[in-house]
């Protein structure tokens, strides 16, 4: 049986390879197969026959954007899944996976939550691993004692954030970038929200969001299409057990409003460096400007050593070890952010350089030469992006979750390569406003307000009229 299956896989891979050679010269992205199970579960599958292993990932629209007024709910629900299921306690769950060498994990972010499994494909290991995985999906127990401990762990996690200037900056950045929008929610909750969370909140959240209609399944590895279909059906059944049915899609994430004005937030902290984050709402998955912004940002701060920010801040001036900019496209507009860390004495200088680089780029865009170099880099490096099973399942999850077209990887470089310099300039003009940037600075002593205002002035030279109304916020370090 086993043998036959293996031979079939190899044959299929061989034939698949032949077809690709005929139809496509050069790099071929992994062949993604997509189907929907009878119960309505979206499945994305790539066969990689070479390594005897399987990756499985279920994604749900169940991230912190769906926390409502209970910050940390998505994260806590996700963390409780391996604490007990179908009568197994946390020890038994861990042993069930580790005794067959499998890796189980869960996680959550702003848009999504996921449940993953990595196992070798020898039946004696894969079958028990999959069986345990399905038990967790079908009937997590949410034991009270583990929930009490998780609360304490979450609170310690919040303490850990407070001793990391990077974490403090990131938290303040999201909070002030998104204000009333759910993306502003601290994913790990607050002292108050964690303490007042009840186990029923988690159970209800699981029941509502971890459902077939709100899920996508990704499978990558050395299993046949038939096996993949069978596994997908079983997983869909597990999701629907206990009378849960196929459920409903999560409600839409509300639209993100642009920032009304520039704002500078300084948070004093006893560090050697200032951690600086500058940004505003950027773009979303499937955005009509996605490729233009992506390509432009590659030149600005997304390409590592050859980026303008790296050249100006690090190479020319030695002001920082790490400096970057990027768009994080999400369900709705994710952040466009620039960041660096510099010794306290150079904070103002570094800010000035970064703002100048951004302002100039937003106005003039990349040079033809820069654009060409970025296109070469993106095209030439494209095969690296799907070189491992781990890379591939990441893309499958993204494509499935954000309902990207199946030829997303096949057409990516072509889409990038046909973008002109004018299109990049146009996109940056419409989508990035250097006069309305949020700036978060963590580090150093409490500044005099005038001083901060000076910084802000540089940020918005052109917008004198808004200066008077500029929100200059001094924040105490969070306790």
């Amino acid at each position, binding site marked *: 049986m086993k043998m036959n299956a293996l031979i079939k896989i190899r044959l299929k891979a061989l034939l698949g390879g032949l077809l690709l050679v005929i139809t496509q010269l050069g790099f071929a992205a992994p062949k993604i197969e997509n189907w929907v199970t009878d119960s309505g579960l979206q499945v994305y599958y790539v066969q990689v026959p070479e390594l005897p292993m399987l990756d499985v990932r279920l994604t749900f629209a169940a991230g912190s954007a769906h926390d409502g007024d209970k910050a940390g709910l998505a994260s806590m629900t996700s963390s409780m899944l391996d604490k007990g299921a179908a009568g197994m306690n946390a020890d038994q769950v861990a042993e069930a996976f*580790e005794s067959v060498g499998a890796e189980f994990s869960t996680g959550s972010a702003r848009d999504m939550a996921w449940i993953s499994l990595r196992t070798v494909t020898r039946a004696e290991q894969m079958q028990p691993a999959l069986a345990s995985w399905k038990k967790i999906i079908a009937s997590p127990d949410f034991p009270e004692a583990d929930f009490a401990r998780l609360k304490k762990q979450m609170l310690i996690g919040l303490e850990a954030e407070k001793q990391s200037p990077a974490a403090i900056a990131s938290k303040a950045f999201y909070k002030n970038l998104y204000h009333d929008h759910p993306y502003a929610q601290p994913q790990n909750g607050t002292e108050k929200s964690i303490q007042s969370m009840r186990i029923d909140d988690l159970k209800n959240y699981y029941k509502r969001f971890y459902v077939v209609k709100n899920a996508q399944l990704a499978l990558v590895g050395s299993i046949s299409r038939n096996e993949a279909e069978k596994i997908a059906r079983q997983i869909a059944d597990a999701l629907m057990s206990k009378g849960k049915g196929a459920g409903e899609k999560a409600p839409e994430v509300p639209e993100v409003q642009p920032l009304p004005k520039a704002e500078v937030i300084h948070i004093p902290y006893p560090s050697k460096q200032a951690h600086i984050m500058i940004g505003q709402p950027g773009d979303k998955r499937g955005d009509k400007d996605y490729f233009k912004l992506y390509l432009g940002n590659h030149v600005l701060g997304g390409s590592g050593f050859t980026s303008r920010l*790296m050249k100006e801040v690090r*190479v020319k001036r030695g002001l920082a070890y790490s400096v970057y900019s990027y*768009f994080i*496209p999400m369900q709705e507009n994710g952040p466009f952010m620039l960041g660096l860390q510099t*010794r306290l004495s150079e904070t103002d200088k570094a800010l000035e350089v970064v703002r100048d680089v951004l302002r100039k780029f937003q106005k003039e865009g990349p040079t033809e030469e820069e654009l060409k170099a970025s296109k070469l880099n*993106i095209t*030439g490096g494209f095969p690296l992006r799907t*070189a491992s099973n781990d890379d591939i399942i990441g893309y499958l999850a993204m494509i499935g979750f954000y309902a990207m077209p199946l030829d997303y990887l096949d057409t990516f470089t072509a889409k990038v390569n046909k973008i002109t310099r004018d299109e990049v300039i146009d996109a940056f003009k419409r989508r990035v406003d250097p006069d309305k940037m949020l700036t978060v600075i963590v580090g150093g002593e409490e500044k005099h307000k005038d001083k901060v205002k000076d910084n802000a002035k540089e940020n918005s030279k052109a917008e004198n009229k808004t200066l008077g109304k500029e929100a200059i916020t001094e924040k105490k370090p969070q306790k």
Partner: protein
Amino acid sequence: MITSLALPGVIRTSFLVLVIMGLSGAFSSLVLADSGSIQGKTDSNTNHISNSVPDNSKVHEYQLKNGMKVLVKQDKRAPVAVIQVWYRIGTSYEHDGITGLSHLLEHMMFKGTKKHASGEFEKLVSAIGARNNAFTSQDYTAYYEVLASDKLETAIEIEADRMRNLLFDPEEFKKELEVVKEERRLRTDDNPNALMREQFNAVAFLNSPYRAPVIGWMVDLEHMKVEDAHDWYKKWYTPNNATLVIVGDVDPEQIHAWAEKYFGVYQSHPLPDVKVRTEVEQKGIRHITMKLPAKLPGLRMGFKVPGMISAKKGEVEKWEPYALEVLAYILDGGDSARFAKNLVRGREIAASAGAGYYSYGRLPNLFVITGVPAKDVSTADLQKALLNEVDILKNELVSEAELKRVKAQVVANEVFERDSIEHVATLLGSLESVGLGHQYMDDYVPGVLAVTAEQIREVAKKYLLEDHLTVAELIPQSLKTTAKTEKKPSTTKSIKK
């Protein structure tokens, strides 16, 4: 687990994970979300159980006439390859006063040669779509490009060029030194656990060079000169001190030919004498406390233990390092291991706890145990609980089920690790560079599978001794900035710092 070839103290140059490019942006929010959280475990290499790759495609080994070694391994899943050039030079070759020099030199390696001026190098690498960087550890420095395999020759040419033709422009040096100092502030100075770890190592080791931080002491960085870097380069960057490792969709014979063409032109040079500096025997427990602006207390403990290299040299039994390796898995090889089961869950004494056997150096290192106490638990009680788990290993045999679990994990991981060609290349290069030899990869799984419960008890009794233990405790201090305390000079609190 902290174990493994994802070596401790390895520093990656240039940019952090913070540079998250393009497509993967979808998930970059996840990366940020995890920062600062201790929900997982204490060390970044946590859970990564390393090692060994089955030999369904063997390692092709060549030696050039000038002494340079070439290792090639095929992986044809995707039309990509990784090229790494390894130099046997790192912090453990440095002496007091020049700590961090190997790492600083690594940064200078991106600053141009006679042929490829500073900046041009990066453009060239970018134009072929390569992802590149470098890393320095206590024992080695390595440079790499990951790229489409049809662009490999360019990368080989570039790497060969900077092996001998590097420029040392004083202005570039000055700026890069500032960059490295920023790197030190980012990684160490503003991170309480990293600061503790740095001084812990300096106390655990008296004369072994493993006492020095890879990034270097700040005072040493402040007094570094461009000539120091240049001398270091001339001494150590020679073909007979290097290994070229290539893994991916490549033809080994073609690689060999290119290696001859580009690296083969250099002469070998005599290498400086490396002093032995064997650590003196520890004669009793050492204890330090670190008072740092922080929120959470922390504990770091280390026992002096032999390394894999000690067995290779015949100083200890062949099986002993493997037994220590399995012992580390027993304590912290996942969520079903003893620390998670007994201390994080169970008695709820630790918010997190980790164990790792630092076994792959060219010199013996430590068996490290780390932990953060659970809420309302004292660090002293956590220490007692962690050491109690060690004592149990000295007195009782581990169960059959636990041994079976570890072995299943090791066998599965051997498959999982092959998913990343970079990981495979890094294993080959590091094993070769510390003197274990790349063939060690084939010995690893059988070595682990042969370990018995009795052997685990024996190494616990023989090596995890209180007299060979160093303990560091982090005592959190206020995170208030000085300006704020100055504002209230009348309160007694303000005098605190």
